[in-house]
Structures are given as C-alpha cells and as structure tokens.
C-alpha cells in the first residue's frame, strides 16, 4: 500500500503544480460563475424556485454538455499518455508496484482532483445560502451527486484514452469523443422502437441527470450504471497496460 499511496500522492501533486490545470480550473469557475449569475439575474423561473439551479448546473444544461465531456480527458491525458510520451512509464512500471495499482492510483488521483472543480460550484451555492437564500439542499446535493458520478465515468474514459499511446491529442480528443458518444448516441436512438431504443433509453445519461439526480432523485440504477461503466473503462486502461506483457 505504501507504493500505492506514494503514487497517488505524486499524481495529485503533479496535477496541483501543472499550470495547464489552473487554466482549466479558471475557465471552469468562470463559466459556472457566469452561468450562475445569469440564472439568478435573468431567469425568472429560477428566481422563484432556486431548486431549478440544479438541472441547469448539474443536469443537461449547456455547461454540462460543453464542459463535462471535455475537461476530464484534459486532466487524464497526463496520467498515462504523458508518461509514455516523455519516457517515464518504463521506470514506473518496472518499480515494485503492480500495473493494477498504478492504474487505480492514477484514476483516484484524478477523481479526487476533480472534486476541486465541483467544489467550486458547491461554493457558489454556499455563498447563496450565506446571503439567506432558501435553497432546497436535497435537490442540490442529489444534482451534485449525479454530476460527480458522471465525472467519474468521464474520467475513466479519459484514463482509457490516455492509455492508448503517447499522443496527447489522441488521448484528449479520443476521451472527449468517447464521452460525447456516451452522451449523444442514446439521444439519437431513444425513439427507436426496437432493442436499440431500449438500450438507448437504458443508457440515457441526460435523462438520468435531468429527470433523476437534478430532480432530487438518487436512482440506484443510474448510480450502478455510472459506477459499472467507470469500472469497465478503468479495467480497459489496465488491460492496455498489461498487454505489453502478453506473450506473442
């Protein structure tokens, strides 16, 4: 476990000192802050019912569609692709630590770091509450729970894309493309009456976020869906790493 925590700490530290990450954070906070201000200032519905902030910020609002699929792969590209590109993967994987521990430590570091992103959004709600606004905390907490689960999934796809090779563009672009596929494909096929429609409706992330979590409902199916899919992509990243050991 010592090696595992050493790697996890280094990854968190690596993210904390990367200037690029602060650009991402700044952009994220700026857009969320602007959206938050806009909703409170111009959206009469939101002014009357503050519970509607949750679907906009954690559901299928513009920010979720724009930022959530693209930001996690930008964070995860450094986890494996960057190591491969600069040549530090070999010293890491020949150290006395298992490949699975490497993948999980790196993934968990990215997950913990992404909490800072959502922490900033949570701070906006706390600020609002500090001014005495009557916030429906249950709805906000459930909405944030959905956004966090979705982030876990998108970080896992990003990690998998990062394991493909040493090309950072491929790692970021591939991860974002995968995330958009996971978001859009179910929307495209949800009205199909056959099995494809059934699958699309079962994997409909915008519905899960909008009608489930952001409405204050924590659906165990959705929780399982996000966690299982995230585990699958982490597993695939591990498979990609150990594939070098497969004897031809």
């Amino acid at each position, binding site marked *: 476990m010592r090696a595992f925590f*050493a*790697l996890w700490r*280094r990854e968190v530290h690596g993210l904390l000192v990367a200037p690029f990450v602060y650009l991402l954070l700044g952009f994220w906070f700026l857009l969320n802050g602007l959206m938050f201000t806009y909703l409170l200032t111009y959206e009469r519905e939101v002014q009357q019912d503050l519970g509607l902030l949750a679907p906009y910020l954690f559901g299928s609002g513009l920010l979720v569609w724009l930022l959530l699929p693209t930001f996690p792969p930008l964070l995860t590209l450094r986890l494996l692709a960057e190591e491969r590109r600069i*040549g530090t993967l070999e010293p*890491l994987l*020949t150290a006395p630590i*298992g490949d699975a521990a490497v993948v999980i430590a790196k993934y968990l570091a990215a997950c913990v770091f992404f909490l800072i992103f959502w922490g900033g959004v949570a701070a906006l709600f706390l600020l609002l509450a500090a001014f005495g606004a009557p916030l429906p905390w249950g709805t906000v907490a459930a909405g944030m729970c959905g956004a966090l689960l979705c982030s876990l999934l998108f970080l896992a796809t990003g990690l998998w894309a990062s394991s493909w090779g040493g090309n950072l563009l491929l790692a970021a672009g591939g991860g974002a493309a995968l995330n958009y596929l996971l978001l859009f494909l179910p929307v495209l096929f949800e009205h199909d009456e056959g099995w494809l429609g059934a699958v699309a409706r079962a994997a409909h992330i915008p519905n899960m976020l909008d009608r489930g979590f952001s409405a204050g409902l924590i659906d165990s199916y959705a929780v399982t869906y996000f966690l299982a899919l995230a585990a699958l992509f982490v597993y695939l990243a591990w498979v990609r790493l150990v594939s070098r050991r497969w*004897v031809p």
Partner: protein
Amino acid sequence: MPDGGFPVPQTASKMIRADRLTKRFGPLVAVQDLSFEVVPGEVLGFLGPNGAGKSTTLRILSGWWPASSGAASIAGHDLARDSLRARRQLGYLPESFMAAPELRVVEYLRFRARLKGLDRRTARTRLGAVAERLGLQERLRQPFGALSKGFRQRVGLADALLADPPALLLDEPFGGLDPLQRQDFRKLLRVLAAEGKAVLFSSHVLPEVEDVADRLIVLLHGRSAASGTLAELSAHLAREAPLRVRLAGGAEALEAALQEGGAAACRCALLSRRGQELWLRPEAEDAARRLFRWLAGRDAAVLEFGRAPVGLEEMFRHVIESGERAAAETVP
C-alpha cells in the same frame, strides 16, 4: 538484509539468471536461447551492435516484458511467476532514463524511495547516502528538466541504488557522459561489485567494458556470439588473429603463389598485401606452423612473422564479422 527491507533468499548465489531466454515480436526473433548468470560481486558486460538484443534482454530482466520462452530470475525469484518480489531485488537504469521534468531531484528520489517500499526514515537516509555517493547534493533542489545529460544519468543510477538492491541492470549507463563522468561511473561500478552487488550492463563503448566487466557476452542477432572473461576471449581470438608476414622483398611473387594453391595448402586465406606485407587469416589450428614451413621452403626473406595484436575492439569486430559470415552462409 538491504535497507529496502526485502529479504534475499539464501539460495540466491546466482543473483541474475537467464535460462534459454527467447523473445519474439511477431516474426522477428529479438533474443534467442540466451543463457547466463551473474553472481554477487560480479560485473557482466553485454556487448553488441544496435539491434543485437541487449536492451530487450535487460527489459525482460527488469520485468517490463515477459520472455516468449525460457526463464529469468532475480535473487531466486522467477520474473514470470513472482515479478513483484523479483523487482524488489532489482535496481534498473533504462537506456533513455527520464523523470518528470518539473519534479525536483529530491522530490523525484523521495517518491521513488516510497514507491520501492522504503519507510520515510529509511528513505531519507538512503537518499542522502546515494546523493552523496553520486555527487548529487547540490542538484537535489533543481528540477530534473534543468539537469545535463550526465546528471540525469546520475539521478537514474541514484534511483536504481535507492533501495540498496543486490542486483543492478544498467542499460548503456555511459551514454551521454563526458570522459570524467565515465571514469567516475566506471569506478562506481567496480565499488558496487566489491560491495557484493551483481551488475549487468550493456554498452557500445568498448574500452568501458574492457575496464569494468569481469565477463563479457557478445550478442549478435539475439544470440550469444561469444562469452567469457576478457582473457579467455582474447586467448580464443589470438588463435584466430590474422597472420602478418613482413618480407624484405618478393611479396608479389609470394602473393601469386599463395593464390595459386599455397594458401590452401597452409590452411590459410590470403586477406591482403600491403607493400611487402602479407596478411592471412588462419583457418586451422596449425595454420601458422604450415605457413612458416611453406615460406621457409621457398626461401622467402621474412623479416617479421606473427599475429596481429588483439584488443577488445578487434575482438568485437572479429566476433561480429564471423557471426555475419555464418549468418550469410546459412541463408539459402
């Protein structure tokens, strides 16, 4: 027990062991049937041209790749079945060693010490000792990316030595070093061997190998083309070294006679004539004796008769050329 806290099995007299190692990449055979052992206190050098299989062998022994067939072990731990334990006994310096450029040397080495399982206190002690040994104290606060190639190699070696492992694998450790640094590295390898470590390293720099290694393996096309101590290899080669005959005159006539069957009778092959010098390659144990008699029989005015001096450079070239010739002859 080393500071890393990992016990070395008492049976590990063969610290690094390869038994009929073979590595295939699709149709390409990178390493074939390679067997050797390195005992504690011994330095074994791998020599060979590019693509001979040196780095592939070291990567198999480091646990990066598995062998396609054969077995390898470090300190008695099989790399295929017990890779983690084997890697705990190992310090490995890859050919192009790199660390994250933004990390300070001390941060990197601290992280690597923890990764290798050292507790905080031991890590600090070992880091200090290794930095002092490799002259890194004044570079500890610098980012890795700001270091010269020579200091990067030192950081790589410091990383390999951190857990005080009993076995060391060093892939081209002299690459990019200036002459003084090379000298320091050579001394250090000898000291490490004297401390009981088993050292396996690869190099293209022949004089370095000649200076440091107790034994050599010359790799060619993934196979061991020659192996032994430098003295053994030189003695073996001395029997095959080119024969040089310096004459007072008449070299042209003798050359013609040799070409017309004289060389075959002496079991030699005529290599060249340079003025009044004839160069021949012996093709049998008694070739030198036969040639001498043949020359005496023709009343040749021989000023000097002997074998060309053999150094590691010549030996290396000879092994490579013989290997290439043998490979060409086996091609249908």
